[in-house]
């Protein structure tokens, strides 16, 4: 099976019904996308498929075949000299020092990045609606809220 992940083509020996999460984590060794519930509740495993946030734990890999998959490993951009530039969401999460254990943060950031791409100037209620389905057991919610708003500002600044 051929998968386009973070702009690179990968060949994976997988059954189309296998969850995308485990193809990423075990078959391809891309462990930045995390597992927590396996039933689509907590949002920890969120990735983008064609820019839309999806829960990789309940997404059959067959459904992602031939589509552009983005994981946390592909959220930052790297220039020709190998210099990495963090995505505005990553910059904001770093600046606000959001995480504690950070196990949920790949999913938080992928959710936020997809949301901000469609809603670059969100209200606080918009942020609540977008982020309310991602669990953080360490309890970093207040910081996530601040960081998502901050990411919107960073994205605006870097675009202008």
């Amino acid at each position, binding site marked *: 099976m051929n998968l386009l992940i973070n702009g690179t083509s990968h060949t994976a020996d997988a059954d189309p019904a*296998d969850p995308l999460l*485990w193809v990423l*984590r*075990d078959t391809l*060794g*891309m*462990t*930045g*996308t*995390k*597992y*927590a*519930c*396996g*039933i689509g*509740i*907590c949002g*920890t495993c969120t990735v983008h498929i064609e820019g839309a946030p999806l829960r990789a734990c309940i997404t059959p890999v067959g459904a992602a075949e031939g589509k552009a998959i983005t*994981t*946390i*490993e592909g*959220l*930052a951009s790297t220039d020709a000299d190998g210099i*990495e530039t*963090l995505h505005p969401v*990553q910059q904001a*999460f*770093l600046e606000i*020092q959001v*995480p*504690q*254990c*950070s*196990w*949920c*943060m*790949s999913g938080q*950031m992928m959710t936020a990045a997809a949301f901000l791409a469609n809603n670059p100037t969100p209200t606080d209620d918009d942020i*609540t609606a977008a*982020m*309310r*389905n*991602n*669990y*953080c*057991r*360490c*309890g*970093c*919610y*207040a*910081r*996530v*809220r601040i960081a998502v708003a901050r990411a919107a500002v960073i994205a605006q600044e870097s675009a202008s």
Partner: protein
Amino acid sequence: MTKKPQPVLTLEEAAKREQRKISRRRFLLVLGGGVGVVAVGAYLARDTIAVEARLAFNQVFLNADTPSTAPPTQPLVWFRIDADNTAHLIIPKIEMGQGIHTALAQIAADEADLAWETVRVIQADTHSGFDPEILFTFGSSSVTSLYAPIRQVAASLREMLRAEAARQTGIDAATLVASNSAFTAGERAITYGEVVAAKQGEWSIPSNARLKTPSERTLIGKSVPRVDLYAKLTGRAVYGADARVEGMAYGAVARPPRYEAVLTRASAGTAESSPGVIAVVIEPGFAGVVADSRAHARAALALLDLEWTGGTTINQAEIDARMTIPPERGTLIQRAGSVDGAAGTRIEASYYTPMAAHAHLEAQSALAEFSADGVTITTSTQAPNLTQSYIASAMQITPVENVRVIPVYVGGGFGRKAGSDVGLEAALLARGAGVPVHVAWTREEDMLYGFRRPPTRNALSGTVENGRITSIRHELISSDVLLSPEVRATFGTSGPNFFETVLGSDPLAAYGSQIHYSVPNIAVIYHHEHLPIPTAYWRGLGSFANTFAIESFIDELAFAAGADPLDFRLAHLPAGALGARFETALNRVADASGWRDGGAQEERAFGIAACYDRKTVVALVMEVSVTGGRIRAHRAWCAVDPGLVINPDGTANQVQGSVVMGLSSTFKERWTVENGLGTATNFNAYPLLTFDEAPTIEVIPIDSSDTPTGGMGEPVLGAVPAAVANAVFALT
């Protein structure tokens, strides 16, 4: 049943027995630190001794400082400085999100005058030159236990480099100024890296290197950014669940249908011919499968031929019924005056804290890899030392050093990852299959197996007269923490046995049960109830349930006295430094929240709670509303005084997280059992607090000392349910 005949004693034997009794009494008296023992008659004397001795022992244990550790004093165990001036710092504590790598690196870099941007933290493993016990990360004790030793070893490093720099440059050591990983003297500068690169032969380690004064500090007390976040935010950080090695396979382990059921017969059945199966591994009490994928391993588990025998069929109703204060006397663990016959209006209340899951989002995970030298375990654990000794003992691997445990980032610990079960599972499967094996529990396994927070019932009664509390009697019953099968399996049985027989309590379940207010008559009485449900460490240990009960009860007493809950607490502060710390924290949180000035918004109420846990003083105000039977926390203010705050922003994150976890536990989490097994297997049946349910949380860090005296990972948690309960009480 026939009665055992009473032995007939000779006069001489009786005298000898009496002698032993007296010497035992003296022994206890010394340990107890001035507790009086009254002996009235032989039988009564024995009884009184037990009560008094246990009281003394429990008091010693409950009020003890963090056990001091003696890590290596040799700087080269801790630091490695490259020629390019990069400073590698090997940290013997586990990073599980509490920011400990940053806090300890700050302390070290401050004292050693390292340039912060050159510091790289390396996680120590069991073979890094530290006693593995030092790696055990528990009880919010990392900073307090390592603050002094790290400063001393960092000062040694600085002075060792200074002496060598003086030798290399010919400049008098006393005139060399250390700053930002370099020494300067006038125009001349030499970096630490240059000193190390030019060094030949053995270093001479100075003894008693001078420590900086508080005014010389550069990093301690600053909100230095976390050292681990870049790797975590780019998905590069490796946790136990992410451990991978070439040629590894995946393991799955058979689980019992009921707690305490024993695997009495096991054979491979048809599992070996199931797709992808590499090996079926059967050991006494253990059966598992190794396969080329996790899905294949789990599918084959169902094909094993297993017989589970016995086990509990207990239901939640029976558990709740067993967690009632029994008529027996229990163990007296705190006493002042006499609660019997205290004057005033009498108030009684009972509180119940159910079982809870840890619900760390990274499930238990470990990779085991055998080589000629033994086995290497890469795992997310709070307790590399226990994982090492547990595996060595269970698998009869000697010496113990042939088990190397490499702890990696922990995706939420909360006490659960002080357990060592998954490491042993991976090791057993790797040995049986002859290939490296990774075991990662599913959420379902993690919700059902391992151990829980014990349920706790607290019964309080007290009296108030003329606005003063005249007595508090606090009885609690809780199931195992230190007395758990988990602790007996990993620490060995001698410690738990000692506590059970000598203290007559599980001191970890009794954490937070003491009354710290100035009350003339106090009795705190502990009861133990062993349940067939595994319970052990959960963040804060007994402090969560006990603080909830005590601080809720204080509001009941304040109400009976007609007093404002804040003023009532201020009026009952203990004497001395602790009382002064409480006073500051309470006043700061009152000012921040506007307790005395406007209070809560319309249709909301404030609740307050204060506590003293892990030597940290906490005062919390919570603003709460109740709409249509639904309780909501809107805003929180929390003042914390751990002595000296190392990193204010890191402290704030711990407090904010504790408030959210405490609210989650208060509003949502009740882990229950039916027919001998947990009922919830995932977050659909055990939901956690979500983003939209979290309050805003303002944190007020307080320095009351120039030394950290308390921890920050746990103390706030127990104040949360009490502040909520008190706000709800005020509203309704």
